[in-house]
């Protein structure tokens, strides 16, 4: 299959991007400055991320759509205000995760942002569940641009006046350059920032404008170190079809009001696990010294018994040390528990630690 390119591909090339294939797309892993510089620039200034490979699924409908979606997602969508977003999951009956996603209630229905590698399957699953009653559009004509970091609000507001009035996890339609953009205050770096849905033919000009105002393009490499420092899950690593939201330590994302009556896909398993606890749970892990423990590193207790596995691990540029996440048996999930990581045949000490590794700077209560 031919590799897909986003509408910013040329701009990436001009900016000396190193490309990798990701979920069938040619995506920039880094630019000339490298991952650590890009990471730090995002934390101190403002980074632009091309996330156009992600799915933008518009589902159109009224209250009857809300009712149907509540049978699928563990969310209190009835009481979700228009233009408010929630993090959630598409699950199977065993609460195994098909995908993690952000769903926003918009005037016309819902906008769901899906992972690139999962979006086509998600569309199929949701089409089967919803039938033909609601119009669904996995919109390939729109790009998705994230701008993240402390200077992002000032930069974006100078182009799209009014975005500074958005609270975290809310969005709205804005007019700019004779077109409608959907902007949400959200992101996946642990920084204040925005995601902008924009038509493909306007995306390059828009991003050039952001660069002129002082933001810089950031690759997927730094996006990964940023999200890991923020303790955020990445599908295919922390999350997959064999993991439940409770095991992934994401019970905060399940609406309390939905737990008493259930009625969503996977609710039985979730309710059982909420009561009895899961046998394995996702934790933060800090290796001692500078050792980096990558995905699939085995975790042991001091009696040589394997108690878990790392799902993501790297060097955290802002933490200035190695960081990791992984799953361990419940009895080893408490903060400060000593564990051992097997790297290149040797066991190295590490500690279970609280997430995030890096404190978030989200903006709450602008108005």
């Amino acid at each position, binding site marked *: 299959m031919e590799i897909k390119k986003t509408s910013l591909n040329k701009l990436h090339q001009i900016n000396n991007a190193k490309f990798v294939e990701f979920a069938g797309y040619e995506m920039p*892993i*880094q630019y000339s400055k*490298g*991952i*650590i*510089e890009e990471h730090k620039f995002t934390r101190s200034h403002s980074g632009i991320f091309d996330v156009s490979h992600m799915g933008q699924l518009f589902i159109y409908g009224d209250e009857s759509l809300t009712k149907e979606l509540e049978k699928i997602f563990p969310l209190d969508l009835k009481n979700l205000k228009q233009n408010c977003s929630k993090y959630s999951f598409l699950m199977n009956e065993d609460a195994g995760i098909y995908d993690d996603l952000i769903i926003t209630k918009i005037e016309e229905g819902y906008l769901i942002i899906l992972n690139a590698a999962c979006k086509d399957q998600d569309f199929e699953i949701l089409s089967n569940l919803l039938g033909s009653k609601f119009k669904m559009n996995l919109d390939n004509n729109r790009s998705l641009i994230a701008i993240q970091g402390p200077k992002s609000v000032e930069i974006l507001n100078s182009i799209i006046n009014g975005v500074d009035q958005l609270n975290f996890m809310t969005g709205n339609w804005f007019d700019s350059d004779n077109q409608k953009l959907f902007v949400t205050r959200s992101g996946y770096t642990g920084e204040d920032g925005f995601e902008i849905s924009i038509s493909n033919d306007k995306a390059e000009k828009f991003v050039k404008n952001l660069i002129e105002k002082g933001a810089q393009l950031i690759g997927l*490499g730094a996006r990964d*170190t940023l999200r890991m420092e923020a303790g955020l899950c990445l599908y295919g690593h922390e999350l997959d079809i064999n993991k439940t939201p409770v095991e992934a330590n994401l019970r905060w994302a399940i609406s309390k009001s939905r737990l008493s009556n259930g009625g969503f896909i996977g609710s039985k398993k979730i309710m059982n696990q909420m009561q009895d606890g899961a046998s394995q749970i996702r934790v933060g892990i800090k290796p001692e010294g*500078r*050792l*980096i423990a*990558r995905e699939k590193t085995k975790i042991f207790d001091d009696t040589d018994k394997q108690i878990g596995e790392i799902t993501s691990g*790297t*060097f955290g*540029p802002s933490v200035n040390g*190695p960081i990791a996440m992984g799953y361990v048996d419940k009895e080893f999930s408490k903060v400060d528990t000593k564990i051992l990581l097997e790297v*290149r045949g040797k066991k190295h000490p590490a500690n279970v630690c609280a997430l995030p590794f890096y404190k978030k700077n989200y903006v709450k209560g602008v108005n």
Partner: protein
Amino acid sequence: MSEVKFSKEHEWITLEGDVATIGITKHATEMLGDIVFAELPEKGSNVEKDGTAGVVESTKAASDVYTPVSGEVVDTNQAIVDDPSKINEDPEGSAWFFKLKMKDQSEMDSLMNKEEYDKFAKESAS
């Protein structure tokens, strides 16, 4: 000191008497990106030509470091273990990895000179 020689695994090597100093090339560091971890062979251990003799990790991945010649490890550069970013800054100078007491200096003969290596690196990168 001898002429600098290079291996296909992107190590450089110089010889002074029977002691070889080995590190990774600038080209290697450019391919790896930001180096954040380095592991070196133990002093006193013996390493074999083309065998692994350390590890470097970038933010993205781990890579083995190979030794282009055999010998006994007589010194290692602790400074790059304490601050691996030095490897990106000065890979072919102060950020050497280890020194070996060579057994068989003829092992140097099969290695590339600078001109040959530059050509090799250019071809392998494209």
